[in-house]
């Protein structure tokens, strides 16, 4: 079965182009690590990893990494000019202290009012929390990058999370392979749909009310 919507690189580009130029952005484990590979260098985004790297970039084709320079997924990356290294105490001081303009995190579920569930499933006895709670709580803007549905097909964007929360009411933007959604005080608004996805398909894949994207420029009704 071919994947509907954006591939991971395209999905990462959707995240990347919504990062403010010159801002400090944490990339969490899983899918979000791909954002460092897809960002436009002209944006001069400075990527933070919970392990203490501040200022890294994805490797270029064929570039060899340093074993001690890895991202949240233990994947080799490279230090950018002006990088700085800190220990975990300082790395999480940065996170909790509000110095991150944004964090991009994976998730199991996101609710219509921005609750984030990303660390445990209801049934599993064993789970891992890592740095997600500190990041979700401390970053100025929490961006979730995830598949739109779980492996069993169930929606991951829901009215109310059934999975244990990472932090309540923190998510501001959700980027899936199907769409980009803003979490606004009055609900979820679709900002952009992947080219091969209709609003009705998106609604069917989502367990929460959605407002449609604005009409393309020049095709307004007014």
């Amino acid at each position, binding site marked *: 079965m071919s994947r509907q919507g954006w591939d991971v690189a395209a999905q990462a580009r959707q995240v990347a182009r919504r990062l403010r130029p010159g801002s400090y952005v944490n990339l969490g484990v899983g899918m979000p690590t791909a954002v460092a590979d897809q960002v436009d260098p002209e944006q001069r985004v400075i990527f933070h990893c919970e392990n203490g790297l*501040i200022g890294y970039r994805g490797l270029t084709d064929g570039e060899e990494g340093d074993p001690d320079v890895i991202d949240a997924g233990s994947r080799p990356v490279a*230090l950018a000019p*002006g*990088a700085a*290294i800190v220990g975990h105490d*300082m790395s999480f001081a*940065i996170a*909790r*202290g509000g110095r991150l303009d944004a964090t991009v995190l994976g998730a199991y579920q996101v609710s219509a009012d921005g609750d984030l569930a990303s660390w445990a499933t209801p049934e599993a006895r064993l789970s891992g929390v890592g740095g997600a709670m500190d990041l979700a709580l401390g970053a100025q803007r929490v961006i979730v990058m995830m598949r739109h549905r779980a492996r069993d097909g169930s929606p991951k964007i829901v009215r109310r999370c059934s999975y244990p929360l990472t932090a309540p009411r923190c998510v501001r933007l959700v980027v899936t392979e199907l769409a980009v959604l803003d979490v606004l005080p009055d609900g979820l608004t679709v900002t952009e749909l992947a080219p091969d996805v209709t609003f009705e398909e998106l609604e069917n894949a989502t367990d929460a009310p959605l407002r449609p994207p604005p009409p393309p420029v020049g095709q307004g009704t007014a």
Partner: protein
Amino acid sequence: MAKRTESPGGVPDKTVSDPAAAVAGVRDGAVVLVGGWGGIGVPEELIGAVAASGVTDLVLASNNCGMGRPGDVGQLFRNGQVRRAIATFPAHPAATDFRTRFENGEVELELIPQGTLAERLRAAGAGLGGFFTPTGAGTRLTAGRETRVIDGLPHILEPPLRGDMALIKADQADGLGNLRFRYAARGLNPIMAMAARTTVVQADELVPVGGIHPDDVHLPGIFVDRVLVTGGGR
């Protein structure tokens, strides 16, 4: 955090051109954190700029309240710009400007142990709500404060100390605000940078971005908003 400027090439550049621009936005009533200890690591240009700005009613957190040196925080007391001082060693014999204001009842003083000052600043920077420390328990300095016995030892609950603006002194800075300090001039400077909404650095030397090895950055630029290069120093 202060708005960041960008140079034409798109590289974030936190350098500013003059002392007035460095402290722009400091307001009456602001909590200002000023680095320096024992006469070193003192951001004299920035203190002078705050003096020149004429802001008043400041809450000033600093290790001392002046040591009789022309560029130090003493001038802020002389000018009547400070409402309240938070310090560990305000009683320096040469701190006459502070002493006069204090004895006339024109300045309040919050005296705190040096380790507690350091930890309160760090707690603010680290996004913590407070901490329990054994320092000062059972002394006059903590009378009436919330106390809890932990592991058999009384501890005082100390709140974070946040600043609206931090004025700090570094040896080297790059345009991203990555900093290095020199010997004992490090002191309170890094944790004050962490604790403030807007952090302004007076640096002796500007180095190119990448000129400080990533493992040798003492304070990452994520805590720094503006850099004034003075070329002074060593």
